[in-house]
Each structure stands twice: as structure tokens, then as C-alpha cells.
């Protein structure tokens, strides 16, 4: 699959090391970039390489797409240096989406950590837009420090204007911070989950997901009530090369969103 060219409409920094690219296309109709919440694109920084990046915008908005990117290595560094008007390559969208149809009618508990909120943001938009089709809606979000929190203004607006219970927490803070300090798993106490009625979507660093899933299980959720998004190194993103193999699955095709019961055995072997 050959990358299509897209143009950077805007680049802005969300935190010290996370930035968001707004991408538009003049050569292709934007409907070709239609995606479902949870899917990802392969972004190609010319001359440097490709990286798998989830789409973090509202899937109902058709004019542009957003990608929030943590600057960690070669490709993401190159992407962070882009300017308005620059062109990059894009392939996608790829992968399985969050099961937003399947979980209609249930209470939803989203647990996100760090950049893990980005792949979940399209689901949040979707649920808020179809709010009546879901039960109680809770978002538990943990970040490294107050300055590392993604989308703080939007979080505040959601909490004010919509029927969603949001709890945020940071690992560390000075005494000026008025919010909560600790780890994301501690927020479950405030969620008052009804385990039978709840479906949970979890995304963040693997170790954060491990602890979160343990805590959800302690609160009575079964493994098949939990969905998570996994990251593996990607190359083709088409299910050919095997780079993203995770046990018997290829994350690019069968994931990145999995029902936890399907990946549980291998997820637990890989734990720290």
C-alpha cells in the first residue's frame, strides 16, 4: 500500500513532549480517511521512516484528522519538526476499532494513562454524541504530572457540559496542585462500578494496563468485559510481515484493540 500525501494544517504542543498534527488532503477526498475510533495510521516522515499512530480526532468530523504524538525516537522526532504546509505520507486507517456498537446499553468505564488517552478520545466523542445509548459513563485518567496531562481544557469541558464522570490523577505534583495525586488504579474507588453492567476500555503503557485490569477484575469485572489496545512494532500494517506478532495474533490486523480474554495468557506471561 503506497502512502498518500497529506499536508500539515496545524501542529501544536499538548505537553512538553506530546504534539498534535492536524492533517488535510488536497489530492484525495477526506472521506478516504474515514476511520473508526481506535484505528491507527502509518505516518511517514519522508527520508526518516514510518510510525504507527492512532487517530485522535472525532470520527464524525470529515475535514481533517488529528494525531497526538509522543516524541520518543527517530520518526516521532522528525514529525515534531514539521511546520504548517509541510507534507508527509500516510497509510491507513488500519486495525480493529473499539467495540462501540457491541457495548451499547452498558455502563462504560474508560481507563487511560499518559498518551493512552489519544486513541480513546474518538470513542469519548462517539459515546458523548450517542450518550443515550450507553449507561453510566466514567473516564479515569492518569498522567505523570499536571503538566503531562493531555487535553486538560477538553477534559474540563466534558465534565462541565456532558453526562460523564471524570476523575484525573497524576503520579507526582507539588503542593500547589489542587487535583489528585497517586496512580490511576486508585480512581476505581470513585467510579462505583456495577460490575455486571460495566464494559471497560483500557489504554496506556502496558504495565499501567496490567495494574488497571487487575483492579477492574478485583472490582468484579470478567476478562471478557475488558478491552485494551496493544502496541507492537509495525512495519507493513497489513498482516504480511509478522513484525507486530503477539502470540498467535498480528496486532496490526487482529488488534490493536483486543478483548482481554483473547490475549490474557500472553499478556500475563509478558508482565514485569
Amino acid at each position, binding site marked *: 500500500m503506497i502512502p498518500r500525501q497529506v499536508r500539515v494544517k496545524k501542529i501544536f504542543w499538548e505537553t512538553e513532549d506530546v504534539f498534535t498534527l492536524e492533517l488535510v488532503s488536497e489530492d484525495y477526498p477526506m472521506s478516504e480517511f474515514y476511520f473508526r475510533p481506535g484505528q491507527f495510521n502509518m505516518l511517514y516522515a519522508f527520508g526518516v521512516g514510518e510510525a504507527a499512530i492512532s487517530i485522535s480526532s472525532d470520527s464524525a468530523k470529515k475535514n481533517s484528522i488529528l494525531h497526538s504524538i509522543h516524541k*520518543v*525516537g527517530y520518526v516521532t522526532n522528525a514529525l515534531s519538526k514539521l511546520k504548517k504546509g509541510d507534507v508527509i505520507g500516510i497509510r491507513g486507517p488500519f486495525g480493529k476499532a473499539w467495540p462501540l456498537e457491541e457495548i451499547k446499553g452498558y455502563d462504560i468505564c474508560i481507563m487511560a494513562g499518559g498518551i493512552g488517552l489519544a486513541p480513546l478520545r474518538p470513542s469519548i466523542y462517539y459515546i458523548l454524541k450517542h450518550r443515550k445509548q450507553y449507561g453510566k459513563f466514567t473516564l479515569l485518567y492518569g498522567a*505523570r504530572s499536571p503538566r503531562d496531562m493531555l487535553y486538560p481544557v477538553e477534559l474540563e469541558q466534558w465534565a462541565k457540559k456532558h453526562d460523564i464522570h471524570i476523575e484525573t490523577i497524576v503520579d507526582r505534583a507539588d503542593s500547589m496542585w489542587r487535583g*489528585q495525586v497517586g496512580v490511576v488504579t486508585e480512581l476505581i474507588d470513585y467510579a462505583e462500578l456495577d460490575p455486571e453492567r460495566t464494559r471497560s476500555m483500557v489504554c496506556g503503557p502496558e504495565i*499501567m494496563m496490567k495494574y488497571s485490569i487487575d483492579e477492574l477484575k478485583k472490582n468484579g469485572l470478567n476478562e471478557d468485559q475488558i478491552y485494551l489496545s496493544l502496541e507492537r512494532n509495525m512495519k507493513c500494517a497489513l498482516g504480511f510481515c509478522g513484525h507486530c506478532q503477539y502470540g498467535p495474533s498480528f496486532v496490526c490486523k487482529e488488534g490493536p484493540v483486543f478483548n482481554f480474554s483473547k490475549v490474557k495468557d500472553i499478556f500475563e506471561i509478558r508482565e514485569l
Partner: protein
Amino acid sequence: MEDLSGVLRNHPFIKDLDENYLKQITGCASNVLYHENDIIFSEGDEAVQFYLIRTGKVALEINGREKGNVRILTMGPGQILGWSWIISPYKWHFEARALEDVRAIALDGECLRNKCEEDPKLGYEMLKRFSHILEQRLQSTRMQLLDVYKRG
């Protein structure tokens, strides 16, 4: 006046506790109220009580000396503040500050320790409940130490 045993029974920490034990614990309990920014206890003070938080939020801070006060944890309704009352030499290792108005039930440590000594079954029940909290805090501290959100 609020019925203390009724309030206690509804707190998650006391959930499913035998009525007889509930009565004994109620004998050590009192209602307390702190205002925003009040210091509930300070590092090094004697741990005479612990608290079942009913409403409001509390921050635990360590004095990081030249680093200033470091906030390590915040707690809220349904949670337990303090375990130093159960472990000799019964001194607080942190400072606890009310981030907003806080209503809590204070349990007198010495009173409860005496009851636990007299009735080891009650003592064991308390230890089981506190071990669970300690295990949770240890896990949280591990997760904080792992600095899981840092990359690169």
C-alpha cells in the same frame, strides 16, 4: 446527633464487619471536621488516631527537605487515612492536609489497639483489612516508582 455506628457501617472499610465488633469499634470513634488547608497531622507527631474519610479530599506530603514539600498521595471519601497507629513506634511519617473541608470518623488508636489485644479475632480482622490497604499502597508506590508514563 448522627448515629456513629450507622455512619461506620456504611463506610467501605467497615463493610461486612460483625455487629459485635462494630459496637466495639464505635466505642473508639468520634466525628471530626477539618477545614480547607487544615493540617490533620504532621510528620513525627504521635499517631493517636486514624481516619475514615467521609467527604472531602486529603493530601499526604513528605517534607523533601531542599526539594520542598512533595505531594505523594491524595485521598477521598471511602478511604482510610493513616496506619501508623497500628505499627510501633506510632509516629506519622507524612503530613496530612485537608484540600477541602473534610468530614471523617476518627478512631482512637490506643483504644482500638487495646480492644484488639483483648480480642485477637478483632485484631486479626483489623490486620486483614489494613494489610489489604497496605498492599494497595505498595502496588501504587511501585507503579509510581516505575514512572510508567516516561518514554524515550
